[in-house]
């Protein structure tokens, strides 16, 4: 039944101009299917390349296909079943989303929170990271694993228990309370990653600085820190983005006084149709993309992988 519906729409001479896009898409896909003789392709590029191509396609489709689709939907005014591509493009939902002043406010709050969280996390975690990297003190491993164990307790359970403390200290619904929640979420990587970075700074480089007359503090600030900066930057980026996207804890201890993009997104996803959610998703993802562009030089997959495994 649905199929005939669809054929009717597609073959109709007065085909809605809105639909022309996905008709041409359909034709495109069909002719692509015909033209792309997989076997011919296989022989043209060779076995290795062929499989590489297949793997890469599957990879892209699985990991990036859905995101791309969401991006497209963000610019759809109408997207009703069974259209593949929105029937009508436009900025209707952008207008809707951006017209709400609470949203603009929540964006500002989000960034404020993320910045504070990152700065506090740096201040609190860097010394620990340095200690882990440089000193072989008693309880070092235990200390490292305590962060792992704290990740083993269910987040919601933890937040609720923290809530009780927060009530006592009047931290409920305050920036400080939310920052603490975001902070404890980011501590694991904020310590492990910079610790890896500090470990990669050769001791000789520090000693050489001491040798030419720099005090321990100056050595740390002018030699160790800049050399570990890429790793620290990546960790900060995790913290920053993590804080931007955190919703569960913010809802539990900060809501409704503290409203962030992520908590708003919750409502939008739950209570709105796909197109509005897509706009919000895009807004939420923008900082990630910007930051990744900024840091892409330091994003070395192997290095990040190594530090994430606590090495």
């Amino acid at each position, binding site marked *: 039944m649905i199929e005939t519906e669809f054929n009717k729409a597609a073959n109709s001479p007065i085909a809605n101009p809105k639909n022309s896009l996905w008709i041409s898409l359909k034709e495109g896909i069909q002719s692509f299917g015909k033209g792309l003789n997989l076997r011919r392709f296989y022989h043209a590029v060779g076995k290795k390349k062929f499989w590489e191509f297949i793997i890469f396609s599957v990879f892209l489709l699985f990991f990036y296909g859905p995101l791309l689709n969401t991006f497209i939907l963000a610019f759809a005014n*109408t997207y009703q079943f069974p259209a593949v591509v929105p029937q009508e493009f436009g900025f209707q939902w952008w207008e809707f989303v951006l017209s709400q*002043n*609470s949203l603009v406010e929540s964006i500002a709050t989000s960034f404020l929170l993320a910045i504070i969280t990152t700065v506090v996390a740096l201040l609190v975690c860097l010394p620990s990271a340095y200690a882990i990297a440089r000193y072989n003190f008693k309880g070092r491993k235990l200390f490292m694993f305590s962060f792992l164990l704290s990740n083993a307790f269910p987040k919601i359970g933890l937040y609720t228990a923290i809530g009780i403390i927060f009530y006592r200290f009047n931290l409920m619904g305050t920036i400080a309370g939310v920052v603490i929640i975001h902070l404890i979420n980011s501590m694991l990587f904020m310590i492990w990653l910079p610790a890896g970075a500090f470990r990669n700074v050769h001791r000789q480089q520090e000693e050489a600085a001491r040798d030419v007359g720099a005090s321990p503090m100056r050595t740390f600030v002018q030699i160790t820190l800049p050399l570990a900066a890429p790793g620290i930057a990546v960790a900060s980026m995790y913290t920053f983005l993590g804080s931007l996207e955190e919703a569960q804890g913010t809802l539990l201890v900060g*809501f*409704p*006084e503290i409203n962030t993009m992520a908590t708003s997104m919750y409502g*939008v996803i*739950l209570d*709105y149709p796909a197109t509005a959610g897509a706009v919000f998703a895009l807004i939420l993802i923008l900082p990630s993309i910007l930051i990744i562009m900024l840091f892409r030089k330091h994003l070395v997959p192997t290095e990040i992988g190594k530090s994430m495994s606590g090495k």
Partner: protein
Amino acid sequence: GEESKEVVTLWAGGSDNVRIAMESVTDAFNNSEYGDKYELELEYILSGSGTQGLRDRLLAATKAGETETDYDLILLSDSEYTSYVAEGGEDILTPVDFDKVPNAARLKSSVAVGEDYIVPYRGTTVVLAYNSDTVLTPPQTSEELYQWIKDNPGRFAYNTPGSGGAGSAFVTTSVYNFMPEEALTSQDAAWKEEWTQGFELLEELHPHLYQSGGSVVYPNKNQGTLDLLANQEVDIVPAWADMVIQQIGQGTLPESIKISQITPSFTGNIDAMGMPAIGGDKDGAHAVMDFMLSEEAQGILLDEMAAIPLIDASNLESENSVLLEGLDVSSFRVTSLGTLGTELNEKWDQEIAPLQ
């Protein structure tokens, strides 16, 4: 200057469409002549976000003996009022001084309970939303609906009662239709004995409901069933009238979607305003209540969230008025189950959800 204004904080909770409408009302209040004296601030608690609900917050603050809070004014439905009183006592709310709310005189309907403590401002009810392309004659009675469900397997869905009022209304009426009408507004645990028949019905309907991946699925949240309807995966769902109307207007629901009420009807609500005793600015709160019953505010609510006006709507011009036609506030079935509601949901979770 700005500083001299008294700040009134209004606390509310619910779905996001209510938030948007309430934000508009807030802006309107601040721009009205009341705005010269008072500044209204909205604190909105999104439902389903896992955060502590408004009632718990207020009760917690009351029990903690706090007196100087910013819970100046809260929004609550008349059915919720019962549970506020049940846990917080009669004096959790301050009685309304109706002299300071002149617009109250224009009210066409009244609340079922707590008349002295709360002022109603909008109505809303659960209805059947259906795809008029495929359902030419929608069911008129509950019996017809149940028969339709069995005749059209997989084309009906209701959301889990814990996740939204539409599903909850469907479950509640399905169960309470077998019971005396007074049970709907009673918190007496004895009524639990009589739930059996209703649950048998729900169990019987279960295999005929919407399926995905080979098993029956109850979507989460009110929006979940509306999505299924929009995407033509089902043909009929129970839904809040305001949500359906609003989304048809926005174009996210196709225009083929229509609403209709059955008899006995699904439950509805009258939403009201109340002043917690521990809140501050009472004068400001009265001013806000008065404003909410003005034509301006009622118009905004009608426009933005298809709320059913409680004052004479003939002067209000809105596309939504047409769609709301036939939904009579005075005939809404009101529930007030208190903690029994939670237990009903729990029973549903335990008996219906796990069915294969």
